[in-house]
């Protein structure tokens, strides 16, 4: 009996050890590139060329100063916050309102209108880039924040509508009908019943929109020409490339671009995990 227990305990220990080994391996795989980037952002190009893996001999802060000033990062970060904030709030509001209508107030046209939104999920940015550029030019919104925000919201909405509609469909229709019988308007039902109950998938949509908009580079590059309107990824790209000559500044610029997203994940880790799980299960 004792032998069986010992064998089980040894097996459990081996399993635990293997689990830890696998987890440590993947943690290192995920974290090492970031550490490497951070470390090399403090080296001169000369030192980087001669010592790619080691700790910097001289910690060169001038890389960050130069990247910050030359890349005009303060205005780019502010723009990224504006674009991401407005796009996320607008996407949540419009998508969930549409999702509520599609899920709970259906009519003959619902499946066509819903389909016309959801088909947006299949469109790639590359395929709409040039037509979008022409339209934005034509309506006189080229090189304006509104000219960036409208496509951003339009691009984020298909996913928001898809997830929102599917989630709201699972909310009992009896709740909506009861509220209607009690005299509640659709707006009242949306705000008081739908929004609180759909909050978990709202977090999922918010996360997808925040990360998607924050990292978006192609459209903002095409739709604006002034540095005062561009966002963080465009600034980072000015330093990055195969023929780039100064690796230290390139890595410093990449770190500057990375830090806000790292902070976002650090502060909202729990919400992100919960939201993604809820969205995945019920969405």
């Amino acid at each position, binding site marked *: 009996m004792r032998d069986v227990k010992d064998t089980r305990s040894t097996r459990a220990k081996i399993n635990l050890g293997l689990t830890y080994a696998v987890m440590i391996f993947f943690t290192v795989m995920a974290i090492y590139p970031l550490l490497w980037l951070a470390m090399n952002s403090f080296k*001169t*190009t*000369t*030192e*980087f*060329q*001669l010592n*790619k893996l080691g700790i910097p001999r001289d910690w*060169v802060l*001038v890389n960050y100063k*130069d*990247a910050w*000033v*030359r*890349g005009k990062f303060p205005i780019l970060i502010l723009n990224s916050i*504006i674009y991401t*904030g*407005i796009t996320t*709030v607008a996407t949540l*509001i419009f998508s969930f309102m549409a999702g509520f209508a599609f899920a709970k107030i259906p009519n003959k046209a619902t499946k066509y209108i819903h389909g016309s939104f959801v088909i947006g999920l299949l469109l790639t940015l590359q395929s709409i*880039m*040039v037509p979008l*550029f*022409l339209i934005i*030019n034509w309506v006189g*919104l080229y*090189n*304006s*924040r*509104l*000219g960036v*925000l409208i496509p951003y919201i339009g691009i984020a909405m298909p996913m928001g509508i898809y997830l929102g509609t599917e989630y709201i469909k699972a909310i009992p229709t009896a709740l909506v009908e009861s509220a209607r019988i009690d005299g509640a308007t659709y707006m009242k039902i949306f*705000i*008081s019943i739908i*929004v*609180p109950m759909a909050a978990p998938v709202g977090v999922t949509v918010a996360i997808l929109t925040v990360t998607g908009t924050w990292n978006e*580079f*192609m459209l903002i*590059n*095409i739709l604006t*020409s*002034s*540095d005062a*309107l561009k966002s963080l990824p*465009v600034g980072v*790209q*000015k*330093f*990055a*490339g*195969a*023929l*780039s*000559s*100064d*690796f*230290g*500044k*390139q890595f410093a*610029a990449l770190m500057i671009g990375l830090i806000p997203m790292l902070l976002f994940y650090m502060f909202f880790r729990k919400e992100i995990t919960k939201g993604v799980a809820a969205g995945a299960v019920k969405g």
Partner: protein
Amino acid sequence: MTGLKKISVLALALLMVVTSVFAQGTREDASASGKVELTVLNYIDMSEPNSANEIKMVWDKFEEENPDIKLVREDLFNEPFHQKTEAYVASGQLPDVLYMWPSGRSTSLHTTHSVKDLMPFLEKDGLVDDYNPATIAPQFAGYLAELPNGITTTHMLYVNAKVLRENGFDIPKSYDEMKAMVKPLKAKGIDLIAMDNMDAWVMQSCLFSMVVGRYGGVDWYDQLSSGKIDFTDDWFVKSLALIDDMYRSGMINRNSLSSPYGSSRGSFASGKAAFYIDGDWSTASFQTDITTGKALISPESQQKDFELMVIPNLPGEVIKNSNSGVVGTGWGMSANIPAGSAKEAAAWRLIKYLQGEYVQTYRLTTGASFPSNLKVDVEKVVEERNLEPFIAKRAAYYAAYTPITPVIDGVLHSDVYNVINTGLQEIGLGDKSPTQVASEVQKAWDSWKKNQ
């Protein structure tokens, strides 16, 4: 009001306020101030040590000297630049003045004739003789679409003469002399040639194009286009066979195929390889970074221990000392600008300035490019400004290695040169023979020609 309601109302209010405050553009009306407004698409590597200075020394200076012109400049680099250019071309709404390539990455600008022919402007101002004739020859679409910075030679053999001296060797005079160095150097853990061949374009552009010129002659592309020669002929197979020989003999390490572009510069500078192959543009990366004061190769060492040359005498070559080169990048003017307008005059004034004596001298001092403008006295500039030895050596290198033969990706279509690039990597890996690659390239060439 519940908490959620408050948040919703607050979010809506915030959305409306912020949108109304920030949603407008930042347009300024230059015409109201009587200035001509020029939109400019500029290409700039912000990590380059002199980029910040360039804005002050080049762009700000132009605006100071030309108060009647307002520049609205867009600075981009690498892929974002090319994506934006393609969007501009597709929409037909080009910036007034834009940075462009003589072919290759700016093909769409050339084929759509989106930019003006600059030769009539040069002729009208009597400036034709100010430029190196090779730099103002007709470009991809048959006219001078951009006024180039200079000529870029895509093959440069950087020599660590100190390593050679310490191992009892002189600067080699032939390919065979170089090959004979492989074993003795390898015994001491030193590679003969450092090269970064992970990106397929490097071998093709920085070595193979020069080799093709040596075996095919200066006019190989003209002969090929007119159907007088094929890729399966001796000149091309021999060129491929030389690359094969370089890998087989260990002159170039097969590990270089997993080495990202630019990553061997450090090991070459520190003496772990006797030679390094790259384009002429890389000299700047060995020079002093003005922001940190550090250099991969110190000026003293540049003078004493390093040389710039091309691979000497190849066995069976038909021309000697040639190098591969392409007209450099430069500035073009949008074809949308009305002829004879004030905007056209302003755009031409800007292009003349950007390729004039002042800016080209400045770019020479930073190592950014070698002048196309003959008014720039390179020797005098090097001497007066006490420039780093690599700049002077670069001047001597341009004079020493002629004629200049075409660069493969500068003359062939990507449908063809991509097959060459891949084939060179397959030779490097030992997967294909030169004859097999030559036959695949011929197929790609035939198929491309059929579709023209």
